[in-house]
C-alpha cells in the first residue's frame, strides 16, 4: 500500500507542477520557469522545517508566499517577450535558479550534526513526515487535499468570468486589450498564481523525497511541467491530471517491467500521443465522447 500511496503522492505533486504551467498556458504564456519556482518552494519550505523547526503547514504557507512573490517579480519582465522567446527566457530563468541552488549554502549545527543546504552536496534529511510519525495515508491526504483545492479553484475560476478573461488573453492579446481587459494585470496575475502553485508543489515534493539538490530541478523537470498541460490539453484541469497519470503512472512506473527499454518507449510514446491527439489527451473531442457515453448511460437508465 505504501508503494501505491507513494505513487499517488508523486502524481499529486506533479499535478501541482503541471497546473502551475497550465494557468500560464491559458494566458498564452508557455513558461519553462515553473521548475525554478518549484525549486524555490522546495528549498524554502525545507529550510523552514529543518533549520527553523517550523511545523509543516506554516512552512508550506510561507514557501508559497515567497515563491509567489518571486513569480510576481518575474511576471513583469516576462511581459516584454512573446512566444518562443518567452520559452527560452523562462528556460534560462529556470537554469539561473538551478545554478543559484548549486551554490546555495546554509549550514547550521543541530544536536552536533550539520544540516541544511550545502551547495552541490545538496540538502539532506528533510524528514519532517517521518520524524513526526506521519503515516503514508496522512501524507497522501495532505497532498491530495491541496491538489483537490487547487484543481477546484481553477475549475471554478474557469466557469466564471475570470476564466474567460484568462483565455481571452491567451487567444488574442490585442483583441482582449481592445475589449478593456488589462492584459498586464492578467498576465502578471497568472504568473503569480502559477508561482504559488509551483511553490506549493515544491514544498510537498521536498518533504516526500527528503533530499534536494540542483540535479532535481533541471530543464528536464521544466519540460515535464509544460508537458502535462500540453499533453493533457487546455480544455480543463482534468487534462493535466490525466497527462500526469499517463506519464508518471503509466510510462514511468507502469512500464517498469520493460527494464531498460522503458525510457526508449517514453520518448516514442510522447511523439505518438502528440501526433494522435495534438490538442491533448483530454481535449474537447474526449469531453464530448465522455458526455455522449454518460448521456447514453443516463438515457438507458431512464428508458
Amino acid at each position: 500500500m505504501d508503494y501505491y500511496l507513494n505513487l499517488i503522492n508523486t502524481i499529486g505533486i506533479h499535478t501541482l507542477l503541471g497546473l502551475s504551467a497550465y494557468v500560464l498556458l491559458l494566458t498564452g504564456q508557455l513558461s519553462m520557469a515553473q521548475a525554478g519556482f518549484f525549486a524555490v518552494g522546495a528549498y524554502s519550505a525545507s529550510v523552514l522545517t529543518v533549520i527553523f523547526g517550523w511545523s509543516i503547514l506554516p512552512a508550506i504557507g510561507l514557501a508559497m508566499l515567497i515563491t509567489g512573490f518571486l513569480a510576481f517579480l518575474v511576471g513583469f519582465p516576462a511581459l516584454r517577450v512573446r512566444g518562443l522567446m518567452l520559452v527560452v527566457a523562462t528556460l534560462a530563468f529556470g537554469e539561473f535558479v538551478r545554478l543559484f541552488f548549486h551554490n546555495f549554502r546554509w549550514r547550521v549545527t543541530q544536536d552536533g550534526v550539520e544540516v541544511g543546504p550545502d551547495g552541490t552536496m545538496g540538502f539532506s534529511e528533510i524528514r519532517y513526515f517521518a520524524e513526526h510519525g506521519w503515516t503514508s495515508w496522512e501524507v497522501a491526504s495532505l497532498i491530495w487535499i491541496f491538489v483537490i483545492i487547487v484543481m477546484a479553484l481553477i475549475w471554478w475560476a474557469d466557469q466564471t468570468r475570470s476564466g474567460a478573461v484568462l483565455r481571452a488573453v491567451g487567444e488574442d492579446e490585442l483583441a482582449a486589450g481592445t475589449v478593456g481587459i488589462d492584459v498586464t494585470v492578467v498576465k502578471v496575475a497568472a504568473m503569480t498564481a502559477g508561482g504559488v502553485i509551483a511553490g506549493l508543489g515544491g514544498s510537498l515534493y521536498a518533504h516526500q523525497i527528503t533530499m534536494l539538490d540542483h540535479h532535481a530541478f533541471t530543464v528536464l523537470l521544466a519540460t515535464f511541467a509544460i508537458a502535462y498541460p500540453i499533453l493533457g490539453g487546455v480544455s480543463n484541469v482534468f487534462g493535466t491530471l490525466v497527462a500526469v497519470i499517463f506519464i508518471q503512472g503509466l510510462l514511468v512506473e507502469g512500464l517498469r517491467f520493460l527494464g531498460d527499454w522503458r525510457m526508449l518507449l517514453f520518448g516514442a510514446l510522447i511523439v505518438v500521443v502528440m501526433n494522435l491527439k495534438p490538442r491533448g489527451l483530454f481535449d474537447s473531442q474526449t469531453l464530448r465522447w465522455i458526455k455522449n457515453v454518460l448521456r447514453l448511460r443516463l438515457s438507458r437508465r431512464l428508458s
Partner: protein
Amino acid sequence: MDDFWFEFVEITQSVGDGFLFGSTYALIGIGFTLIFGAMGKLNIAYAATAIAGAYSSLAVFMLFDVSLVIIFIVSAICSAILGYLVYLACFRFIPVHNHLAALMASVGGLFFIDEGIVHATRGSPLNFPSMFSEAYFEVGPYGIRGDLLFVFFIGLISTGVLLYVLFRTRLGLATRAVAQQDVAARLCGMSIHSTNSTTFAVAGLLGGIAGAMTAAAVGILSPVMMLPLTIKGLIVTVIGGLGSIPGAIIAGLFVGSFENVVMYFRGIDERDMYVVALLFIFLVFRPNGLFGKTITRD
C-alpha cells in the same frame, strides 16, 4: 606593468579560444533559427540530431577506418536524415498552427534520441578522432589551437554555402517564400511539406557538421553533451534574433568568448549564471535579439 600585460594576454587568449569554440554554438544556433524562421516552430530535438549525427560518423569511423574528412560528411548526412525523420515524426502530421503539440513531440524526439544513444553506447563516453589535434601554433605569448581554427573555417564555409543556397537557389527561394507567407506560397503551387522537410534536412546537414565539430573540438562524445548544447544553442538563437542567420553567427561567437572570459574572472560556479544574465540583458534592451525581425501580427 608586467602583471597587467600578463593579465591582458590571458584575457585575450580566453576570448580567442572562446571565439573559435563559439563557432560550434553558432552552427547550432543557425539550425534552430532556420527552422524557426521557416516554420515558426521550435525543434528541441535539433542539438540531439546533431550529436546523433556525430555518433553515426564515429560508428562509421570505427567500422571502416575512413579519413577524417569523410567523418564530417557522414555526420552531416546522418544528421540530415535524422532531421528529416524528426520532421516526419514530430511536425509533418501535426496541424500547422499547433505550435505546442509540435514542440512537445520534438521533446519526445529528444528523449528518444538521447536514450537511443545511451542504449547503443551503454552511456560510455567515446573517443572522437580530431583533425589537426596536434596542431598548436604559438604566436608570441599566445597559443592558438589548430583544430579550433579548422573548426572555425568549416563553420564559415558551411554558413557561406547555406547563405548561397538560401539566396541564390530555387530551393532557398521556396524556403523563404514559405517562411514569409505560407498561404501565398501554397497558392503559387509550392508544396509546404516538401519545402519544410527540405529545410529540416538542410538544418540537419548543418547540425551534423556542428555535432562533428564539437565532438572533434572536445575529443569525446557523450550523451551528457546534448542538454547543455541545446540550452546554449537556444540562448544563442534568441540573442541573435529568432530567424536571423547573421544574428545566430555573431551571437554564437560572442557567447563563446563571453563565457570564457567570465570563466577566467569569476570561475566555474558563476559562469553559466552570467550567460543567463547576458540573455536577460538582451531581452530587456533588445527583445527581438540582435537582428530579429520585428514580430508582426499574422
